[in-house]
């Protein structure tokens, strides 16, 4: 058995029991990296990783190699956010997430490719070339955490870290057939993460299994005094209740009647997921869809995501324009002529939306409508423990697809945007494999919970995973 195919839970156990050695594990990871070089998954690999893992077998993460998206600052490894602006930048401090991983005995094996500045849902906008989907190299891995999702799917790491503003963990996880978790906003520190949309950004774990995401979440979650938006609330052991099943959980199925979803094989996959939860003892209902946001207080009703796209577009671009103002090429990095097309587009539209005379018209209005989505979810979570929907409105698209629309990312992440605007946690687990495709093309099921309810969400996701065959690529 190739050791790089182990899950995080398996690898930790085997390393602690001395059934396998770190040098064997790293050597198999190295072979996978060489074999999959053409996928362009890593922007930088740490050549000293195996040395750094030395004698860590007894620590929590047992020295396992973790792939990290290239927007997390890592001392000793260049951090570019896949933009030429930061080409060659060597961070003078460590992100809280990667520090916690290292303190827990994990090793950052390398920095993964992404859409430049995390602006996109394809990994095609990277200034250092696109990443190919390991399941089908003619297709995209999704994004913006496409490199991290691909690293997990191609066994080029044991688990990975991504970041999400609206869909950037869950959509690539869905397209690559792996598991990705976006936490509640403020559950994981953003310190040392190249900022995109600060009221939305969330780091999160990506892994082969739900259990692996729970294990990593245990390591990286928690209050950070350097990020004032992290909440001072207790972090449970997310693995403790993982295996207790979904019995009695009230689950609502969302967005089934949305145009483009209704009547498709994608909708059928979600219906089947609902049936699986029912067979596990959950109480499953369909949530009515309303195309009118004024129905946000109506019982058992979810408002359509199409206004969220406009809200997200304004809020995110406004925050982007502010966050990317720091790249002046004076203190670090190259000057603004090195910005790529997508970044220019977002910065400029955000600059417009925040400029004098327009800020109230666009930004304020967007934040008001954002409140309606938040109230809508607040009402729904009085009735439900969890809400489920698709992570992405389709399987992985062919290379080149992102050039079709200046709104490509927003359209891919349409079904995730309302919950992201509300700061809710969600996890994507594979829920379907396209039987008509020659390659392995997956759909992801997005399981959402109320603020700080990641434990419940993981519990349901684990039960679903154990009672379906979609992760059969993992060696048991």
């Amino acid at each position: 058995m190739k050791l790089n195919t182990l899950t995080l839970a398996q690898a930790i156990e085997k390393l602690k029991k001395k059934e396998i050695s770190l040098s064997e594990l790293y050597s198999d990871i190295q072979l996978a990296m060489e074999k999959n070089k053409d996928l362009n998954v890593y922007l930088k690999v740490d050549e000293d990783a195996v040395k750094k893992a030395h004698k860590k077998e007894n620590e929590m993460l047992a020295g396992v190699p973790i792939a990290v998206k290239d927007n997390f600052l890592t001392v000793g490894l260049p951090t570019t956010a896949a933009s030429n602006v930061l080409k060659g930048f060597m961070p003078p401090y460590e992100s809280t997430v990667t520090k916690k991983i290292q303190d827990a005995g994990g090793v950052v094996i390398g920095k993964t490719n992404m859409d430049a500045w995390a602006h996109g849902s394809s990994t095609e906008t990277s200034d250092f070339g696109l990443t190919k989907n390991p399941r089908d190299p003619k297709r995209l891995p999704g994004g913006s955490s496409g490199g991290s999702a691909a690293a997990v799917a191609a066994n080029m790491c044991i688990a990975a870290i991504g970041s999400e503003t609206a869909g950037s963990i869950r959509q690539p996880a869905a397209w690559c057939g792996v598991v990705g978790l976006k936490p509640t906003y403020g559950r994981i520190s953003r310190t040392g993460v190249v900022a995109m949309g600060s009221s939305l950004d969330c780091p999160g774990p990506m892994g082969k299994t739900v259990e692996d995401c729970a294990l990593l979440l245990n390591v990286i979650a928690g209050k950070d005094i350097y990020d004032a938006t992290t909440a001072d609330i207790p972090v449970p052991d997310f693995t403790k209740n993982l295996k207790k099943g979904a019995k009695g959980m009230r689950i609502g199925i969302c967005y089934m009647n949305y145009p483009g979803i209704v009547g498709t094989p994608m909708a059928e996959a979600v219906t089947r997921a609902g049936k699986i939860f029912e067979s596990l003892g959950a109480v499953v209902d369909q949530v009515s869809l309303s195309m009118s946001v004024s129905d946000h207080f109506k019982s058992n009703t979810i408002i359509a995501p199409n206004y969220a796209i406009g809200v997200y577009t304004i809020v995110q671009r406004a925050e982007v324009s502010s966050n990317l103002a720091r790249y002046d090429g004076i203190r670090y990095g190259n000057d603004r002529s090195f910005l790529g097309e997508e970044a220019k587009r977002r910065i400029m539209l955000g600059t417009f939306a925040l400029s004098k005379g327009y800020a109230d018209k666009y930004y304020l209005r967007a934040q008001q409508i954002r409140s309606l989505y938040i109230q809508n979810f607040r009402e729904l979570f009085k009735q439900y423990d969890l809400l489920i929907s698709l992570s992405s409105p389709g399987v992985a698209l062919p290379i080149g697809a992102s050039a079709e629309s200046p709104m490509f990312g927003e359209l891919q992440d349409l079904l995730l945007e309302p919950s992201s605007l509300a700061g809710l946690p969600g996890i994507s687990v594979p829920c379907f494999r396209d039987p008509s495709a020659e390659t392995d093309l997956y759909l992801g099921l997005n399981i959402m919970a109320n603020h700080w309810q990641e434990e419940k969400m993981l519990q349901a996701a684990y039960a679903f995973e154990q009672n379906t065959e979609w992760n059969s690529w993992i060696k048991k």
Partner: protein
Amino acid sequence: MGYNKLQMKTTKKNTATFTPGDVKKIADLAKIPVTPQEEQKLADGFNATMEVVDQLFKIDVSNIEPTSQVTGLTNVFREDEVDMTRMFTQEQALSNAKQTHNGFFVVPQIIDQS
């Protein structure tokens, strides 16, 4: 498996329409160099994006509080103390700068001396 395009076309009524000249003005504000070819392309892109944003104007937003923080945090304080462990040395602070002079950053001239 067929992918469904979730495109949403609306007829734009309430949002701005951008000309290449508008783009140039915004580019100057954002300090982003753009070529005349880019100006046209960006204007087209902004106009397409604004079609989606235009939908927001169908909604009556009077009496709705804007969102400021999604999990309800307010006034997060910390002690106003210097944490020496987080401070950069001068060498670290300058380590990624393209141009330095006697331990300082070199910045572009912004005052016209002509």
